[in-house]
């Protein structure tokens, strides 16, 4: 009876704590990753490297995570530029199958991709933000596999500020252009501009050129 008397309040306390934990604000642990692939000019030659990154990300994604790969071309603010997308199933066996199908779709894309004349990075970013805002994810990451030089077709306007609160934006494998080599200031100014744009929107900005670092692709 003595033990019963001690155990009952403890059980009640545990139950109360559990209820308190459940009644609190629910944290969304699902992750959303949107990878933008630059397909302009000679950058298409880098897509094999991008494929490795995609495979790495696929291997590290878990049940419930969202992964989208989209191309950056002349007008990227469009769903048509999405190459492959997936919301991983909660069952590991189904998630495995989805990952295989995703990897196959990327394989097909890398083989058949044609380079575009222009590079609409801002449009792609806006599309990524729209998509991830719509998706039920808690942690949002946008990876841009590009030289980060934006070239828009005539008449295209990309004069807007992005709402990137809670977003992590990483520019991957930012290759230096010939003009950058002539005047490195151009490269630095380009990077600073992007950083300002992202941080003004409330996002976190990072440039990762050494993809061998373990934390390079952390999300």
């Amino acid at each position, binding site marked *: *009876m*003595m*033990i019963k008397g*001690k*155990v009952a309040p403890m059980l009640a306390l545990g139950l109360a704590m559990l209820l308190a*934990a*459940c009644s609190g604000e629910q*944290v969304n*642990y*699902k992750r959303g990753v949107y990878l933008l692939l630059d397909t302009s000019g000679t950058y298409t030659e880098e897509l094999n490297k991008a494929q490795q990154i995609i*495979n*790495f990300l*696929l*291997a590290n994604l*878990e*049940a*419930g*995570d969202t992964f989208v790969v989209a191309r950056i071309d002349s007008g990227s603010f469009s769903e048509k530029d999405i190459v492959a997308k997936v919301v*991983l199933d*909660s*069952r*590991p*066996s189904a998630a*495995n199958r989805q*990952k*295989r199908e995703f*990897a196959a779709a990327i394989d097909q894309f890398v083989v058949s991709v044609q380079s575009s004349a222009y590079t609409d990075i801002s449009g792609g970013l806006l599309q990524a933000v729209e998509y991830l805002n719509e998706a039920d994810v808690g942690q949002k990451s946008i990876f841009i596999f590009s030289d980060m030089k934006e070239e828009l077709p005539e008449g295209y306007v990309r004069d807007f500020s992005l709402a990137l609160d809670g977003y992590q934006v990483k520019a991957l494998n930012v290759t230096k252009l010939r003009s950058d080599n002539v005047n490195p200031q151009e490269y630095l100014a380009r990077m600073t501009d992007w950083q300002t744009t992202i941080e003004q929107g409330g996002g976190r900005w990072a440039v990762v050129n050494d993809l061998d670092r373990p934390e390079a692709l952390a999300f």
Partner: protein
Amino acid sequence: MTDFFARLSEDPWLGFLIVIGTVIALYMGRSSAHGAIETFFRLLSSALRLGARSTAMAEKRLKERNREVLIALGKEHAEREINREFFRINKFVERDLGGYPKLQRSIQEQVTTINEDYERSGEVPPPSPEWVAAVDAVAKLHLNEKGSSLTEKILEDIHQAAEEQHREVLVSYRQGMAERHSILKKMAPFWRKLSNSVDQIGTHLQELKKRAQQIDLQMERYEEICNRPDKAERMLKASALTQFTIALIVVAIAIAGAYFNFHLIAYPMSEMVDGSNRIGGARVSDIAAMVLIFIEITMGIFLLELLHVTKLFPIIGSMDDRMRVRGIWVVGGILLAMASMESGLAFMRDYLAVQDRALQASLTGVEVGAEVNWITLAVNMGMGFFLPLALTVVAIPLEYLLHTGRTVMGMLTELLLRLLALTMRILSVSLRHAGRLTIHLYDLVIMLPLWVETTLKSRQQVGKAANGGVLDDSEYFANEASK
């Protein structure tokens, strides 16, 4: 404030005047200040002394309470042991000595059979030969008749008849002896059976004697607890500490086992329960795996309770025997089913791991072994089956932990209260002395005016002594006021 100090550093005379003023003020308020200091420290000291006393009283009450609980637990434990021994004896008597009348009848039957066989095997004296009378008649014939042919013939016939009968009697005697030997030979198994039966009774009686000695020991222990509580308390305390430590270690091992078991089933569980949703940061599938393990442990606790091994839930222990046996079958069945489920989950874990490895290989292009390793699979499945069953026995150390935890916690609280009381007492004494020290330090600050006062007073004393000890008016009123 900074300006004030700056001004002081600029004007040393101002500082000097402030010091002098402070000393004079302190001197003038000496008596009140002494009173205030003394009262303040005495108040603190008294409060601490009071606190120490009440803490010591609380410790004493707690000690008494702990003692009562410990003795009660010791008595309960001893009673339980005695009950268990009686239960064992009862079972033993029912099982082994319950068949005693049957055994006795069997022994009697065996004894009767042996007796009959013995009687049958008795030696029958051979009948006296029929030709003895003829021999007597021949013996009475006259010697002269002995040479006659008739006498010879008669003697010859008698000789032949005697020889023939001797052979017949010898054959009959040998047959009789053989029969008796065969009867005796048949008796041997009965003797062995009888000997075994007697040995069996002897063993049972020895067992009974051993159990009776155990009960005697337990009774002695119980009486010791009742009659010599101080000694019993010391013994029980030491025993409780030892049991608590052992139970704690075993429970820690069980927790490690449960953790290992959790990792065995958590991943495959996500195949059935949504692994993408989380509660408080933990995956729902992980929580489901944990709940499954908790249910297994709970079932184990119920099973041991139904088996009367533990006594955590008196209501289960007091169920009637038929219900209890049914409960044992039901809970045991559930446990087996759960163990089989875990074994299945362990199988699925290996299957999923192989799939994962194959995916990794296809994504990275690095060849890794993507086949099922049957040894690993068998070990995983075996662990999945046996770990839940092994975890069921955690109820025993858990019960010990709960029972002895009360005593150990009580002892620790007692120790803490004693330390608190001691600290408070030391602080109380220190504060009393600190009050005196502060008063002396106060006097040290106003040392100069005090010295002047003492000097003046001593001079006045000298003057008074010179005037014959008569005080003037002002001195008289000053003395009265100070009184």
